[in-house]
């Protein structure tokens, strides 16, 4: 059997595959999860990913940009998989989701700093699960003897207090918007941003009645249409800095958007530096490198001082 390179593009998913006699490489893009942001296409070291802006019919809502991957350029490295804030891309080797670039420390792991304190969750399925715009939080209530409880609201106060609460957060697909932290009782959720940056809409530059950015933003609550001026405004607090809005914005100056930082595990890699530079800016890359350098210096100085101190003692 010769090497087979396959590409399948359906309404639900885009999949790329290398079928070798002894190995199978597969890339799957879940189109429902994909927000049409540019992150994968910016980060791809082989420039294999293209973002296609969809044309908008008059009076219709804007469509999120479509992602297309060039099979002849893709090397199944999985960098898009690692970086996608929505976890829409999955690269597998022989069906296993083990990426060699992480294994060999050629690329950092994204740090999704999400903690859930189950005890602080309200005794209500709907209230706690529905706060997540991506529907990634699942809360299970059960009695002390393990019986699941569907509607804790129907129980009395003491019974409710005795309930066991389990919270399940699908971190892999979480872009870390932080809405849960804000909307749930204090301390129930702790979320740090995966990506940091800046988002500001200059409403005066927006074309009349344009809501394209709002139409494509996958996170309910970041952008809203103001009743006062009928223009879209941003609530930057919940923005995940994916940039899907920037892709569809028809006026360059209307949307002031940039990424400045990516939360990741420490790494020494040219591929990462390049990806970071393209996701943020050369200045932000320099900042990270400097920070890394000074951290290293601080550590080595500390080590030496520590050793000296011991000697003196």
């Amino acid at each position, binding site marked *: 059997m010769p090497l087979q390179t396959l590409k399948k593009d359906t309404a639900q998913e885009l999949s790329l595959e290398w079928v070798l*006699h002894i190995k199978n490489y597969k890339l799957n893009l879940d189109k429902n999860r994909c927000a049409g942001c540019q992150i994968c296409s910016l980060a791809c070291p082989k420039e294999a990913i293209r973002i296609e802006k969809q044309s908008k019919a008059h009076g219709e809502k804007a469509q999120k940009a479509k992602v297309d991957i060039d099979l002849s350029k893709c090397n199944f*490295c999985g960098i898009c998989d690692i970086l996608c804030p929505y976890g829409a891309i999955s690269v597998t080797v022989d069906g296993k989701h083990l990426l060699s670039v992480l294994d*060999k420390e050629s690329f950092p792991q994204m740090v999704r700093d999400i903690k859930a304190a189950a005890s602080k969750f309200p005794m209500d399925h709907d209230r706690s699960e529905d706060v997540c715009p991506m529907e990634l939080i699942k809360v299970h209530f059960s009695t002390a003897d393990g019986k699941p409880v569907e509607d804790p609201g129907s129980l009395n106060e003491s019974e409710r207090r005795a309930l066991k609460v389990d919270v399940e957060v699908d971190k892999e697909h979480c872009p870390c918007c932080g809405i849960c932290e804000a909307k749930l009782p204090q301390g129930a959720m702790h979320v740090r941003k995966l990506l940091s940056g800046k988002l500001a809409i200059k409403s005066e530059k927006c074309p009349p009645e344009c809501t394209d950015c709002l139409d494509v933003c996958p996170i309910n609550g970041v952008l809203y249409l103001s009743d006062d001026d009928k223009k879209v405004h941003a609530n930057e607090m919940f923005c995940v800095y994916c940039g899907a809005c920037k892709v569809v914005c028809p006026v360059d100056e209307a949307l002031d958007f940039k990424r400045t930082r990516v939360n990741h595990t420490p790494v020494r890699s040219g591929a990462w530096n390049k990806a970071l530079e393209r996701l943020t800016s050369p200045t932000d890359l320099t900042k990270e490198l400097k920070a890394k350098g000074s951290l290293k210096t601080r550590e080595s100085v500390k080590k030496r001082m520590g050793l000296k101190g011991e000697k003196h003692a």
Partner: protein
Amino acid sequence: MKSMPRGTRKNVGTPRKERKPGQKKAGPKAEGPRIGVFVCQCGSNIASIVDVDALTKYAQTLPNVVYAENMNYPCSRQGQDEIIVAIKKNKLDRVVVAGCSPRLYEPTFQSCVSRAELNPWLFEMANIREFASYCHQTTPEEATEKAKDTVRMAVAKARLLQALKPIELPVTKKVMVIGGGIAGINAALDLADMGFKVYMVEKTETIGGYMALLDKTFPTLDCSICIEGPKMVDVGRHPNIEIISYADVLKVDGYVGNFKVKIRKNPRYVIAASCTGCGECRDACPIEYPNYADMYLGVRKAISIPFDQAVPLTHTINRDYCIECYKCVDACGAREAINFDQKPEEIEVNVGAIVVTIGYGMYDPKDLAWTGYGRFSNVFTALEFERLILAAGPTGGKVIRASDGQKPHSVAFIQCVGSRDINKFEYCSSFCCMYTLKHAVMLKEKYREAIEVYVFYNDMRSNFKGYEEFFNRAQKSGVKFVRVKLENRRITEDPQTKNLTVFGENEDGKPVSAEAEMVVLANAAIPSQAASELAKILNIPLGKDGFFVECQPKIRPTDTEVPGIFLAGACQGLKDIPYSVAQGSAAAAQAACVLSKDSWTVEPLVAKVNEELCSGCRVCESACGYHAINVEKVGDKSVAKVVEGLCRGCGICSSACPMDAVTMPNYSDIQIVAQIQAVMERKLKKT
């Protein structure tokens, strides 16, 4: 002269100049040249048809002929001695032999007359055998008349012959071998051992060619890389050999003894001199891509070598796949062998001879729909099977199916896939029968009763030493041979089990079939992809089958039409390993014939340009098929210059030149016109 055709009149004036010195040189006497004619009887080959006595008498009547005789074999030692005596006795200064073809015997007689202290180019041959006695056997009288015409023509030309000096070309005592397969390896080692500097240019990352990818060799079942590997290492270590791998030949200028070759070294992004081949970079690299050396069944790292025995052991970064994480740079550390800024580098080398050993390619049977290759997961090509059964291969030597990873209980081999097919490749691929026997025997002797092996063949070609015996061994081992016609073969797949059924027709036209869990195709071997490009660069012809054409298929199989360029191995025509090895050494010996000389002598029958007449119009330049004539600036004038080493004396430039500025020595217009006039004489007399 009066009856001269209109178009040639202008020719009369120019060569007159050259006639004067010629005549002066040849005969100081006022009466002009003294011509001797020697008529050959050639046993009965000529004498039984042509009346040689009458012909000799006739020759004596021709102007300037002072001596004529006929003899049985002028080409014999005795005959040559007689000619020498006659030349001296009669003070002959031109010699005509009327006999057979100049292609065969001109050099013999040229050396004969030069022994009589006569310039060898004052000799002319009249072919009265092929042109008279052979083709007019039933009409001896007419044959004799035609022989007279032929002799008259030769004498007419001989009268105007000029003494010429052979051209001596310097020889660069270095040689280039293009292609590092087993033929090239042998050519290179032989030449290097003879003491010549050898540049071995290889397109891929490593030398070794196809042989390095094979598991075993027939008929001895020796491990292929175990016998080739040491030779590869020898090439790598030989002080006289410089391997230029991962490189392309861009341009070849010059001629025998003096070739100038431009080569592009493609960047490996690894500094060859610093790379120790340790492989630490490879271990650090996170990226894999399909490996051509494994026929894409397996993978290799973005920085790696194609297989463990690669020579040179220098690693290569494939930038098509590399993500530039620089983990390899960290791993390489102080050796600092990795350089991402490497650029393609063009170099030029001067060599005296070139041996072309670029090998062959493999036909992709995907477009033969009946094979199911590419659609049915358990259909393989022979080379894929080779990598499957190889212990160092991607499966560790396990022959397993692609559909389920299981060992097959039955394997069918299909012969002549694409080859011996007039719609695809008419020729026989030459080694498929034998490698199929090898695969069949290996399977059968390894798994015995646990495997059923079928060979669907049409003719079994096992015609070299030990090969027929190997066929017998295969039959004895229990391999089932099914003889089928090449037409109407097909393969079907069971969609559930992914097993395959092979259908064919036996000699009586009756259907035969067998079910097998794996099918292996003996797909045609084809000319190398690089052949057509290289043919243009070297100006050597390709045959209609796409392989390089040798000078003469029987007695000059490793020469090309271009002096100094030789062929060996499968690029000249498909052949197996021992034959390729032998040809590699043969081509080396021929290259050494050039390299061992201090100067290379070529016939002076090359174009001459009269620079006064030349207008620099470049018509000759575009007419020349050998790039042997180029217009250059001389002072403020553009004139055509002949590269004597390249000129083959075909005369195209001379006939194309609108200014009559180019002449061919001893084929000048006036000499040719004299011959035409001589042959027309009889007709003119009759009418």
